[in-house]
């Protein structure tokens, strides 16, 4: 019945191709990540993708859906990768498995599968992990060129056995976490180098990783997978909000560039909030949505109980999407 009516011609990339292009756009960021945080990133990615595909396969079987059609759409791979990139590279394997299972089974399929999930699946998985295993989820290795000076065998050991001694020897809290603690304790913080907190090396790594994600993001904009609205509004809003606080009191609040280049800001701007399924669809809606995420990210980072606020900000704004969409309908042609 479906091939009987116009239009008889079509020119559109398939969903699979779109997802593969997103994966391709993630590559520079992934490479930079591996460079600074070690092979663990790659292990996380591999385990996440394998877990995602296996769980997707079984859920599709149980739901009686065409397995081949849906497993090749690539959406599970993208969601699993985004989750893996949000998790510390020295996290043990079961963390990533639990997170991915949540992402695929609960956040995606319980809500109806591809196209129906209300929340960003990767962020749901991340939020569950952050709430359940805060200690593991906030421990990152010191960024260095780990491929060069850090024993790969040791990393794999950490990955599979989660040896506590090794973790403690190489990990620390993230800069955002550290600064927050310092502010909370009423202690001064030094952005250059403070009691064993090599913020400088963190930010060098962070800036390069961020720029790599930016590169991939610009690529997606250039091939028209995403529009400018979400990333540009998000980054500008976050810069603006943090600038206002910073100008009011620079001893209490971090300058905008730290907010822009730390944590998952750029990953969030180009790859997380641009998830079409759980995001808004109208141009104006995208602007409201991105502003809301930026505001919440800032508030959670600075005033909230968690060092990183992207996941909760995105999940909260996902709830608002139907409202945002319905209130931001563009004027139909000739309806002025």
């Amino acid at each position: 019945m479906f091939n009987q009516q116009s239009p008889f011609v079509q020119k559109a990339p398939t969903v699979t191709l779109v997802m593969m292009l997103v994966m391709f756009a993630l590559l520079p960021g992934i490479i930079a990540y591996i460079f600074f945080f070690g092979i663990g990133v790659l292990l996380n990615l591999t385990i996440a993708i394998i877990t995602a595909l296996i769980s997707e396969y079984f859920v599709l079987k149980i739901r009686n859906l065409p397995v081949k059609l849906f497993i090749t759409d690539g959406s599970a791979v993208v969601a699993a990768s985004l989750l893996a990139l949000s998790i510390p590279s020295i996290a043990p394997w079961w963390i990533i498995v639990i997170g991915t299972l949540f992402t695929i089974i609960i956040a995606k399929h319980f809500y109806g599968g591809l196209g129906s999930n209300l929340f960003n699946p990767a962020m749901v998985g991340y939020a569950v992990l952050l709430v359940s295993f805060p200690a593991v989820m906030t421990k990152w290795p010191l960024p260095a060129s780990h491929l060069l000076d850090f024993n790969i065998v040791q990393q794999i050991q950490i990955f599979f056995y989660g040896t506590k001694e090794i973790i403690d020897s190489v990990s620390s809290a993230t800069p955002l976490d550290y600064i927050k603690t310092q502010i909370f304790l009423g202690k001064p913080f030094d952005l250059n180098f403070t009691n064993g907190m090599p913020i400088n090396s963190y930010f060098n790594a962070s800036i390069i990783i961020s720029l790599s994600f930016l590169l991939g993001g610009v690529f997606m904009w250039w091939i028209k997978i995403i529009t400018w609205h979400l990333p540009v509004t998000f980054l500008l809003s976050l810069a603006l909000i943090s600038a206002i606080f910073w100008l009011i009191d620079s001893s209490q609040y971090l300058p905008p560039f730290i907010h822009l280049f730390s944590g998952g800001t750029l990953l969030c701007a180009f790859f997380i909030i641009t998830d079409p399924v759980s995001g808004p669809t109208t141009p104006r809606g995208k602007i409201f949505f991105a502003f809301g995420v930026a505001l919440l990210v800032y508030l959670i980072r600075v005033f909230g109980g968690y060092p990183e606020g992207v996941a909760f900000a995105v999940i909260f704004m996902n709830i608002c999407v139907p409202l945002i969409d319905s209130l931001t309908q563009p004027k139909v042609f000739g309806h002025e």
Partner: protein
Amino acid sequence: MKLLDKIFKFNGGVQTNPKKDISTKNSIKCLPIPSELRLPLRQHIGNMPKLKVKVGDQVLKGELIAEADGNISAAIHAPTSGKIKSVEKLLIPHPSGLPDFCVTLIPDKKDQWIKKAPVNWEKLGMEKTIKLLLNSGIVGLGGAAFPSHLKLGNNRNSPINTLIINAAECEPYITCDDMLMRERGNDLIKGIKLVQSLLGAKQTIIGIEDNKPEAYKIISDLIIKESSVHIKVVPTIYPSGDAKRLIFLINGIKISKEKRSSEYGIQMFNVATIVAIYRFIVHGEASLSRIVTITGNIKEPRNYEVLFGTPLESLIQDTGGQKIRNNTFIMGGPMMGFKLPSIDVSVTKTMNCVISAEPEMIEAKKEPLPCIRCAKCAEACPVLLQPQELFWFSKSDQFEKAQNYNLFDCIECGCCSYVCPSNIPLVQFYRYAKSEIIAQSIEKEEADIARERNDFRILRLEREKKERAERNAQRKAENTSEEKSKLIEEKRAEIAAAMNRIKDNEKIK
């Protein structure tokens, strides 16, 4: 002129593969008169015309076969001289595939004209000219088939300032307007000047897509001396040829769904319609033929000037037939056209193009995936609708919501389906929702009428009951007062009479 330089781009649209060059290599060809012409009576928007001939009648070329029934209707004429063979329901080129009334004419091959009567419109006045045009059989030849006299005549309230000529021809493959401009530019310009005067318009703007440089050159050379006729090149973005989109491209005026362009002082005609009007007014020739593009998966694609009623099969045969045989043909363009139910149909006024389907056009489309709300469709929608929301509402039968999201503004141009990465046949969902809503509203109207009737009946019955009761009560009341006294009086009179009789009897005794 400033206006001519500025293009007002509409939202979205898509860049299609135009595929126009394949059918413009050859000139327009005329075929010999076929051995049988099949003329559907309904070839336009509006009422079916009233048949004026009988089976067995001999008709001349240009003779009226069916007369316009009412104002929104169009006449049908004999495309050549011959004998009426039959009037019966036959297959017509319509997406429904249902047969409709057709007049079959057997040409005598003499091609003998009826006496042509050119219209001296300046002397006759507009009203009479419009009446004549009503039976000229001219309808919009761009594909919509709206009777043209309505567009020329209905402007008393809002005078027409600008005549826009739709030469955009934005659908891929179709080249009949392009070829007409290349080969019959003179007739077109004469027609434009004529229609401009008929409308009393001050200026004419020809809107043409930038993928027709040959036609543009010819027309712009022809209008050099015409101070009131301009040509404006618009970018090749489908659907630039949609009337409202073209008006916006040209003057930046957005015409809403409820309004007609004439309310803004604008009237639009397709190039082929202009030539048809010219031939009727100046030469007295009714609408008997049109140019059809036969293209696509065919050996020698080209344009034909054909009499209405010509069997489509004879055209296909003349082109050498399909390259890859699949016996599937699309009428109109690939974006908005429809699959012909069969090749056994005739050329009608709406048949601007027949595409022999390329294999990829008809192969079973990939299984549609769920909508991922990527909003590519919204970016492509020239009406600025939210196709992803309309799809959701149409799919789940939430028709009221679909209407709130302006479903009926959808022009079914197909841009959304064209760009959908999930392969969803979006336009089909909108067509479904529209037809359901229309069916429901008809049902509701009928139900409303029935309910009103029933309410009225109940009311009437009650009223009658009440009236009857009142009448009875009155009668009773009358019985008790007047009639009783009358009765008593009668009785008294009877008694009195009896008494008198007794008295009389006693007297006699």
